[in-house]
């Protein structure tokens, strides 16, 4: 963590504006300039390379992008669950409830994990410990964060199992994970996450490993409990259809950076960045029946040979000379609506018009 500490010190000395807790009191989580690197045999992978976003109390944010774009690493960094080595949080601030998580001691962080911030993972089949009963695992979470007796913890476990809609929770608590199906296990994991009434729930691809029919049930469940308990939600997924139904705001990630943010409706109906358009275009839609599905050309760049400038440039149908320079997250119209694309720069009216037409056609095809 030495590099992080050095960065924190430098910032403090320079008195960089923006340091310090967020001003607005309704902001629950604010991530600023987060950089997470992995030092592997062939060099350094900048998995997360300057990510900023915030989530309000009770708010919901979807983080979408292809595999390997750094969304899971972002979530793990917030929980400070990055394996060090080879990983390292090199720079950044994660303000949660008035505290910078990256400056907390391990013990303070441990109390936050599972207490104020809970997380559910992608693989329900392997995320539960096979040798302990479901009840033991949930009550363990409860007893770690609240001073309750074993019996009370057990009751809380039953209560949260009931909350996530498992039948006969009194019997479930005595079962082992291998006795449950994948969907049931994901419900158990959600129950475990909710058992301490967290302020923020991070769901890392919660439905990817599940059957399609179960996916819808689990999403509905996450929606319901989010609305019921008022916990904030950070939903990580590669599936735009999932976020469309679940969150209010959206951040699209590509190659370790956020490339577009805004409310779900705006991003999906009016994508301001060719990558988002490409993602939308790859969704099968009613209007596209009978046509071949279009995927984004090419593949994600190798982490060791990032192209200069815009990281999406080698795959981008609209790229031109300017794209060899790295664009900032440019504000688009109103605040909180940003895109990391030169098309949105002032003066690029002609190119923007060409792109807008293509994007509008895509949206029409997909959403109709």
């Amino acid at each position, binding site marked *: 963590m030495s590099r992080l500490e050095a960065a924190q010190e430098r910032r403090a000395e320079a008195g960089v504006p923006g340091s310090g807790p967020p001003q607005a009191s309704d902001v629950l989580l604010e991530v600023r300039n987060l950089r997470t690197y992995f030092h592997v045999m062939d060099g350094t992978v900048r998995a997360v390379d300057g990510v900023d976003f915030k989530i309000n109390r009770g708010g919901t944010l979807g983080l979408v992008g292809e595999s390997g774009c750094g969304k899971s690493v972002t979530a793990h960094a917030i*929980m400070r*669950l990055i394996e060090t*080595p080879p990983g390292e949080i090199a720079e950044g601030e994660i303000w949660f409830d008035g505290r910078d998580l990256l400056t907390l001691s*391990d013990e303070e962080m*441990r*109390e*936050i*994990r*599972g*207490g104020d911030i*809970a*997380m559910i*993972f992608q*693989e329900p089949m*392997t*995320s*539960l*410990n*096979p*040798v*302990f009963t479901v009840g033991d695992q949930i009550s*363990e*979470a409860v007893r*770690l*964060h609240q001073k309750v007796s074993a019996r009370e913890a057990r009751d809380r476990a039953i209560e949260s199992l009931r909350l996530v809609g498992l039948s006969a929770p009194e019997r479930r608590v005595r079962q*082992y994970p*291998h006795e449950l199906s994948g969907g049931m296990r994901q419900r158990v*994991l959600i129950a*475990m*996450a909710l058992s301490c009434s967290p302020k923020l729930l991070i769901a890392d691809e919660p439905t990817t490993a599940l059957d399609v029919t179960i996916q819808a049930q689990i999403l509905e469940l996450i929606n319901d409990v989010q609305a019921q308990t008022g916990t904030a939600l950070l939903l990580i997924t590669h599936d735009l259809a999932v976020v469309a139904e679940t969150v209010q705001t959206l951040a699209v990630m590509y190659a370790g950076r956020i490339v577009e943010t805004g409310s779900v409706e705006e991003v999906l109906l009016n994508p301001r960045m060719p990558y988002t358009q490409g993602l939308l275009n790859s969704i099968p839609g009613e209007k596209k029946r009978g046509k071949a599905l279009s995927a984004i050309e090419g593949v994600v760049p190798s982490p060791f040979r990032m192209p200069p400038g815009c990281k999406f440039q080698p795959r981008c149908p609209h790229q031109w000379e300017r794209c060899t320079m790295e664009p900032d997250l440019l504000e688009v119209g109103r605040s909180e609506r940003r895109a990391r694309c030169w098309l949105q720069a002032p003066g690029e009216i002609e190119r923007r018009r060409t792109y807008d037409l293509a994007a509008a056609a895509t949206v029409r095809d997909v959403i109709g």
Partner: protein
Amino acid sequence: MIKYIIRRALQAIPVLLGISLVTYFILLIAPGGPTGRFAQNPNITAAQIEAFKRRWGLDQPIPIQYCRWLGVCGDKPFLINALPGGTFELAGLKIDLPGGDNGILHGDFGYSITDGRPVVDVIAERLPPTLILSGTAWVIWIIIAFLAGMYAAVRCYSLFDSALTIFNYVGFSLPTFWLGIVLIQLFSAPPLKWFPVGGMWTTRTVPPFGTERYWDFFWAQPFTALYDLGTHLVLPVVTLVVVNIAFDSRFVRASMLDALGQDFVKTARAKGVPERRVVFKHALRNAMLPVVTNIGLEIPFLFTGAVVTETIFSWPGMGREFINAVGHFDYPVLMGILLITSVFVVFANLLADVVYVIVDPRVKFD
């Protein structure tokens, strides 16, 4: 559960039969065979040898000989002979059992060729010293291997981990006969002379182990006896421990690393479980599963693994007895030791399996 144990026990029967076949094979390849000792004797005629063969059923076909040796065939009808036989006195009552009384099923392993004693007596005399030596070493190295392997897994790629890896490579390549002799040279020879060169007791002050006089001495001066035994144990135990830590600590490290890399460990961390508890509760419990089996498979060592160590340190155990018997072609003793140790091993594996189903809830019984 009970059904599972019974099924496993039934599976052990063919295994035991297989073991007895291999053991019997040794009798067949023994140079000279049972009549070998008459070959050099000019006073014994060919007719006498023939009579001897007939008397002991050696003229019968080999399967029948094997069956008789097992104790299934014999004077009584087939299978009845396998039941317990002989006359016993129980609480003043004389009980006549219908079965046979010779063959290995009835604990009759024959007589040693070298000194004519019953094989069972020889083994009974040699087993305790072996168990004392190997058992002590085993317990110590399991504990060390566990601690070292777990620490290396938690602090993976640390200095300690590298040091353990190097130590393991060295230990894995060290033959016990080399290490044992070096230890004797260092610590038993002048100038240090800290430990005795070999043996199990100091001949001048302590009566031979296992005799009645030894136990009298033991109860009279328990501390002196234990101290004497202890000083004789140190070097052979160190030899065995150093050589055997290597494999187990690597195994523990590997299964611990595997467990620590599982998703449920991440879940445990994400719900705020302290790191200590992640290691000792969530990961260890899972890492134990393969280790239990492995420890079960090591049990044969308790009887046999110390052959060379026993030889070097003149430890009066099964291993040394076995080497003597091999040297003298004393096949009844060899067969007895092979059979009894193998049977122990079969039961030890059975035990390990039962422990396994107790610790792993995923194992289904049917």
